[in-house]
């Protein structure tokens, strides 16, 4: 950890300070305006008819009765939109496979087929009940096993979108449910001598889960003159603008996408959610429309990928990890969404954050007739972490070694080459592991107990790459009174970007807390930013913000040098303004700007871009010298109790650590780690979307399980590790996902420790734990 030194004159630095979260007061008091609260023109309310079949051809859609209902303004079917837009109706970040409304075929129970526009929602919903659809059932593909048999296909042909250029070789591929395959070949796992080698293997499963942010998705779209305005809950305003412009064949300046702070998202509000449908309806009907997902509909919009991993890990007689294999299958549901990216980026770390000489990984993205899976905090990595952290733990136990010490010995260090060929920097796995094991007193002996409750400890480490390559832009407008306005398209969904981006500006320009305001993302005013996701903003947008602030600083210095008649090199920005050593004078920003422009209220603007690049992995070996701009490293240690009568697991203590490079705001970093840990406890113990014949059976908050305050461990601590990144803004990296990666395996490893059973399927429900104990003869 670094101590922040006071700056000259006793001024406290902004970077590293625990500034209060922006809008905290408004959120607590209920005065913050979310998307659904913002004023919009009078709108038609939209209700959606959703498919009742998992896989079927649409033979006919009868909307006569629905259209005749008083109060109904229009009923629009997929066929109507297809007639208007043709194949442009198909959108999606990786594959253009997702129709705003299904027009020829439905691919999951709940897929939108028709939309009713009415004067109020009750009327719209009543009209939906009057729509009759005639289907011809097709063979459904419910799971990846069936999908891989290749007898029936969710899509007839693969359609890579224009967004990701590296997928173009898949265009036109037929007769497959595998829409993407990533392979890693490092060394040769088959050539590893078997003499004295210990191998552990398993079949791991992580079920699909739902994001369940408190704020429901809401999109309003309307036509203003000859342009389309969209106000929507999205993490990806720049993407949505492009997607909608493509959909409607409009120039980018005729599509405006705005958002507000989001009431949580976790990956659920990005890419193509309600926006293509809202845009198509508003434009085709030349009217204003409003779509709000109900809580039940939100369960259908996107999920986390269910994933199976068949894997092994081997150590030689000296305890070196000599081989790791993983066959990963991501169930992406009816649409690829960003599944192909997840498949590659997460597949490549399936061997774990260890020095492994020989690795074989196959990671596949597989279509099924279920709701589409998309990005979810962790981007597919928790599913492979579940595998490698269970395996490495079991391997240590097989070898009679302490699981934490065994990991410590093999974890990647600075300068090590990871199995996919990239050299590690600013990824202090050992520091994270040390912090969490110290916190729970790993080396102090403890009683496992012999009665009803058994105690156990577990540890796990996680590794994730930041999304690369990506693009960020920032525009700073400095006002004559010394306050500043920051224009970025990063969306604050609770992660705290509206707090830390101003801290970066303030650090460079020596401004006070509260003096920099972030403008809500608006594609008419805020510049392009790839996405707010993948923990990328602190680093990418943070770097753009820092660079813009530095340009602003230079402008101020130039103005001061001019005014004072000194060299620019003689001037520097301080908390009081710009100071010249020679002139022994400090000019405040407000005087400087007033002097320059000759007016009050004037503005000075600076802008900057920050773009990262990568070396695409080799298609044969999956290797790359620079597969990512940087890494996230995290570790978790837990102490748990298992109730041997009920199988219930109670997490008593949890310590979570993340290497953030440098904490711009330590409080927000701790909160991110803590929040991720609590979400992870849900995934470990009970979160699960249960399907029956392609239909979600627990898609309501009466049945879907989320952690409540009563599931939070009595002791939960977050540990900030700072291994500065050489090109991070002030050394910083993101932290949104770090804390969630290793929670489930840490808990499962503790269950293994407590009652001696290794469970490979999530969640660790009491019934599953008890079954495993019964099978193993543990009582």
């Amino acid at each position: 950890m670094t101590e922040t030194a006071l700056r000259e004159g006793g001024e406290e630095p902004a970077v590293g300070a625990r500034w209060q979260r922006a809008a905290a007061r408004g959120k607590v008091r209920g005065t913050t305006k979310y998307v659904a609260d913002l004023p919009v023109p009078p709108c038609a309310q939209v209700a959606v008819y959703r498919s009742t079949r998992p896989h079927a051809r649409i033979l006919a859609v009868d909307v006569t009765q629905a259209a005749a209902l008083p109060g109904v303004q229009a009923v629009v079917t997929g066929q109507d939109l297809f007639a208007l837009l043709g194949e442009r109706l198909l959108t999606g970040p990786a594959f253009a496979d997702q129709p705003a409304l299904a027009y020829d075929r439905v691919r999951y129970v709940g897929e939108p087929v028709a939309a009713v526009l009415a004067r109020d929602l009750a009327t719209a919903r009543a009209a939906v009940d009057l729509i009759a659809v005639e289907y011809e059932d097709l063979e459904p593909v419910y799971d990846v096993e069936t999908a891989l048999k290749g007898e029936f296909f969710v899509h007839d042909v693969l359609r890579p979108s224009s967004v990701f250029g590296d997928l173009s070789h898949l265009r036109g591929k037929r007769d497959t449910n595998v829409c993407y395959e990533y392979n890693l070949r490092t060394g040769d796992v088959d050539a590893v001598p078997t003499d004295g080698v210990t191998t552990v293997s398993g079949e791991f499963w992580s079920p699909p889960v739902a994001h369940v942010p408190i704020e429901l998705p809401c999109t309003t779209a309307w036509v203003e003159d000859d342009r389309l305005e969209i106000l929507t809950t999205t993490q990806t305003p720049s993407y949505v603008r492009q997607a909608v412009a493509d959909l409607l064949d409009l120039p980018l300046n005729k599509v405006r996408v705005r958002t507000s702070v989001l009431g949580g998202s976790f990956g659920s509000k990005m890419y193509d959610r309600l926006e293509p449908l809202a845009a198509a309806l508003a434009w085709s009907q030349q009217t204003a429309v409003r779509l709000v997902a109900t809580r039940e509909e939100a369960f259908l919009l996107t999920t986390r990928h269910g994933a199976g991993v068949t894997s092994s890990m081997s150590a030689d007689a000296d305890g070196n990890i000599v081989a790791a294999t993983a066959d990963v299958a991501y169930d992406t549901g009816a649409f690829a969404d960003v599944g192909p990216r997840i498949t590659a980026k997460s597949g490549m770390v399936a061997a774990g954050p260890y020095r492994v000489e020989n690795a074989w990984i196959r990671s596949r993205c597989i279509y099924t007739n279920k709701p589409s899976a998309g990005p979810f905090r962790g981007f597919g990595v928790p599913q492979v972490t579940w595998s490698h952290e269970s395996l490495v733990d079991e391997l240590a136990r097989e070898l009679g070694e302490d699981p934490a010490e065994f990991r410590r010995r093999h974890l990647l260090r600075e300068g090590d080459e990871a199995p996919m060929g990239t050299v590690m920097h600013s990824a202090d796995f050992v520091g994270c592991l040390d912090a969490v094991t110290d916190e729970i007193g790993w080396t102090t002996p403890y009683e496992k107990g012999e009665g009803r409750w058994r105690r156990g400890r577990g540890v796990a480490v996680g590794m994730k790459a930041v999304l690369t390559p990506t693009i960020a832009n920032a525009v700073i407008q400095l006002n004559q009174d010394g306050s500043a306005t920051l224009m970025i398209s990063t969306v604050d969904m609770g992660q705290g970007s509206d707090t830390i981006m101003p801290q970066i500006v303030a650090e460079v320009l020596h401004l006070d807390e509260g003096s920099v305001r972030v403008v809500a993302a608006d594609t008419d005013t805020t510049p392009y930013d790839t996405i707010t996701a993948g923990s990328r903003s602190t680093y990418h947008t943070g770097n753009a913000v820092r660079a813009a602030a530095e340009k602003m600083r230079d402008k101020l210095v130039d103005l001061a040098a001019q005014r004072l008649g000194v060299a620019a090199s003689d001037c520097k920005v301080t908390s009081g303004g710009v100071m010249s050593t020679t002139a022994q004078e400090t000019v405040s920003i407000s005087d400087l700007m007033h002097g320059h422009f000759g007016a009050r209220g004037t503005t000075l603007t600076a802008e900057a871009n920050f773009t990262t690049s990568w070396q695409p992995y080799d298609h044969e070996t999956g290797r790359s010298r620079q597969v990512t701009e940087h890494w996230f490293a995290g570790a978790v240690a837990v102490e748990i109790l298992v109730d041997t009568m009920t199988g219930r697991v109670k997490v008593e203590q949890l310590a979570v650590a993340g290497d953030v490079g440098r904490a711009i705001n330590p409080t927000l970093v701790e909160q991110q780690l803590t929040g991720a840990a609590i979400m992870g406890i849900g995934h470990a113990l009970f979160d699960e979307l249960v399907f029956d014949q392609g239909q979600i059976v627990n898609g309501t908050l009466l049945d879907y399980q989320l952690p409540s305050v009563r599931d939070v461990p009595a002791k939960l601590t977050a540990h900030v590790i700072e291994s500065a990144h050489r090109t991070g803004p002030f050394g910083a990296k993101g932290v949104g996902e770090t804390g969630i990666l290793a929670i489930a395996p840490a808990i499962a490893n503790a269950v293994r420790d407590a009652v001696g059973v290794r469970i490979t399927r999530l969640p660790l429900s009491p019934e599953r734990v008890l079954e495993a104990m019964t099978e193993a003869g543990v009582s």
Partner: protein
Amino acid sequence: MPVLHQPRDLDEACTLLAELDDPMVYGGGTAIQILLKQGLLFAENLVDLSFVPGLTAIEATATGIRVGAMTPLRRMETDAQVAGVVPLAAATYGHVANPRVRNTASVGGNIAHGDYRLDPPTALLALDAQVELRSAHGQRRVPVRDFFVDFQLTAVEHGELITAIEIPAQPAGSASSYVKLSSLGENDWPSASAAALLVTEAGRRTLRLGIGALAPIPQFVSVDVSGHDLETTVEAAKAAADPLIDPIPDVRGSVTYKRRLGLVAVEDAVRRAWKDQDDD
């Protein structure tokens, strides 16, 4: 959207219930709102009892207490009189959902919901409570042990509303406990629950058990445990509960698991009640 009616007295409420199409009594609304929103419940007319006077009183009676139907669950948990006269009820009401729901949900609405997983019925069964019903035709009382008729079905007839629950005082020297076991989130519905009441009267020792979430309706059984020690009482309780357990399998667990959990709930409740008795 259903129409909301807000009668000012009981007679008006009863008249509305008799005359309206498809009426439904609206208490705290915590269950109705969710069920309506999800399309699981249909009502054209809601008769809200908030403005009917006299439905929130907790009164001492000759034999125990009488609780008005609109009394919030939170009061059952925190009221000193309830805790003194029927500690098992106070403890059980304190386990319902969360404080926000308990502050809103009503005692009458709770049992009218009729869900097999409700917490309070287990205690009310053990305590032999009576449900007071009223309609345009008059008043009647139904023992809570006859109140739950079938899955989501209670003895409340068309045109009737619950006005109060009468709970006999827990006998002197009795001991009790309520155990709620969830299988997923801690704050979820129970997958098994049990209220145990140990009573010694006229030289006989009786264990009264109310069990919830383990069959389509809450179940009750009484066991003579005179002369039993703790271990034989536990065995007798499990033996008596076992035939009543008929779990509904769902995402929370299979029949086998819930049965097993049910017997754990019974055992835990008996052991805690026994300990409660030793502590006194």
